[in-house]
């Protein structure tokens, strides 16, 4: 089986600063890839270079779409690229305010992705929206409420529902648990894990929280100063870190046994 996403020698610079330095990796279907590193290590930039429209200075991003066509993302016509980000891809932002329309109801937030792909039946859209609210464990009675009346964890789950409604193959998440308290985090992680398994999603997950990747990620990339310093199976990297930075990162986490 071929890869879903292939990143080859991706480079992104901001003036003298190299945010991503010759990054290469593969992502396979159904896989969750965690990217960890300290703040400023370039992990969010990497995610934006791949998942949204941030330009890159070198390298190649290749994606195999649902029709098994291999697409060179950075040479894709803008129309196709935008369509991809609105259908087969989903982006879950660290701050739900960046990923949601805060001034329209939860239902409309989910509806928008369907409307974008041409669904024009109000009744069907609503059914679909309710179904996905259920999937992310939000009470369907809240469908007509504004996201601003939701708690942080609910907003994050609403973001997920909005993305999932078009049945994407690949989801990008930037610190999805950032800013949530520990119990809410745990619930969100639990939900993510079951959704990923049931819907056969592939995820690239950026976080600085080792606990999150230990629970969710199959494979792990460790970034420092724009470079990948270590990569491999999550358990291997966390239990037997090779690079001094990874060793430091792992040992800095409190372990509650």
């Amino acid at each position: 089986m071929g890869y879903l996403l292939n990143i080859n020698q991706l480079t992104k610079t901001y003036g003298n600063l190299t945010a991503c330095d010759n990054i290469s990796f593969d992502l396979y279907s159904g896989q969750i890839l965690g990217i960890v590193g300290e703040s400023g290590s370039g992990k969010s930039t990497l995610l934006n270079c791949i998942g949204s429209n941030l330009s890159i200075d070198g390298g190649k991003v290749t994606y195999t779409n649902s029709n098994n066509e291999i697409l060179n993302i950075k040479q894709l016509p803008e129309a196709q690229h935008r369509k991809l980000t609105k259908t087969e891809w989903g982006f879950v932002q660290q701050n739900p305010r960046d990923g949601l329309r805060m001034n329209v109801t939860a239902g409309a937030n989910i509806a928008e992705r369907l409307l974008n792909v041409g669904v024009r039946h109000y009744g069907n859209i609503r059914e679909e929206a309710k179904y996905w609210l259920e999937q992310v464990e939000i009470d369907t009675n809240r469908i007509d409420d504004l996201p601003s009346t939701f708690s942080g964890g609910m907003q994050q789950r609403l973001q997920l529902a909005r993305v999932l409604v078009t049945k994407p193959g690949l989801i990008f998440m930037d610190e999805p648990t950032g800013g949530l308290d520990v119990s809410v985090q745990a619930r969100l992680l639990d939900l993510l894990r079951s959704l990923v398994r049931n819907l056969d999603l592939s995820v690239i997950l950026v976080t600085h929280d080792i606990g999150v990747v230990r629970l969710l990620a199959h494979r792990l990339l460790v970034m420092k100063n724009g470079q990948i310093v270590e990569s491999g199976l999550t358990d291997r990297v966390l239990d037997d870190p090779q690079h001094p930075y990874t060793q430091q990162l792992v040992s800095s986490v409190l372990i509650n046994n």
Partner: protein
Amino acid sequence: MPEPGFNFAYLDEQTKRSIRRAILKAIAIPGHQIPFSSREMPMSYGWGTGGIQVTASVIGKEDTLKVIDQGADDTTNAVNIRRFFKKVCGVKTTEKTSEATLIQTRHRIPETPLTEGQTIVYQVPMPEPLFVIEPSRTEAAKMHALEEYGSMYVKLYEDITQFGHIATAYDYPVIVDKRYLMKPSPIPRFDNLKMNNNPALQLFGAGREKRIYAVPPYTEVKSLDFEDYPFTVEKWEDKACEFCGATDSYLDEVVTDNEGGRMWICSDTDYCNGQLP
């Protein structure tokens, strides 16, 4: 005779030519907004400077001009704009829709069906339909280019969710010629149907926003709707115009005294007069 000291129709010839070029482009791409170099007019923005510039650019000595505001020929805007053109063009003016070759309008399309050869000019406050969901002009232009109009339906979705029906009553967005999303200026949605396949040329001018767009004669204009919530127009159930008895025209509710007395009358004064015996 026109007032001496002014060029015919107030604007200088080069300006009129540049605006005509924008109009021609607009006609060539129905519903697409064309930027133009909007001039200072001897009245403030919001008074219809866009419509006036379009009218000034297309009006000829042989034209007969009608100006309406909310359907009426005798309201402040209508009277003043008509007088302005009479002064700077010396053209014939009329209140009769059927006699006019050029009609400038604010907020209504006349009830009397327009015919081939007529031109109707709309005054537009805000030409960009995507403005409500996308504040960035750059992004909106991209959405137009790529025909990404799905988000526009979010507003209609919210209407149905909140009110049980699509409550947008004026400036109801339309798709022109199966391609461009367009704001029809603040006409009631009652008038949207009249835009479809209209034999007259429809021109839209937004002075402050510096945009011109057009719907050529016999062009499809479709109002946005959902499959299970089709587009509908306002109805007045059992009411008829209390002047002329018309039941097929757009009615205004007019408060007549301090005791809560009110009456329903045609908003189109010319049509109303025509119905009287």
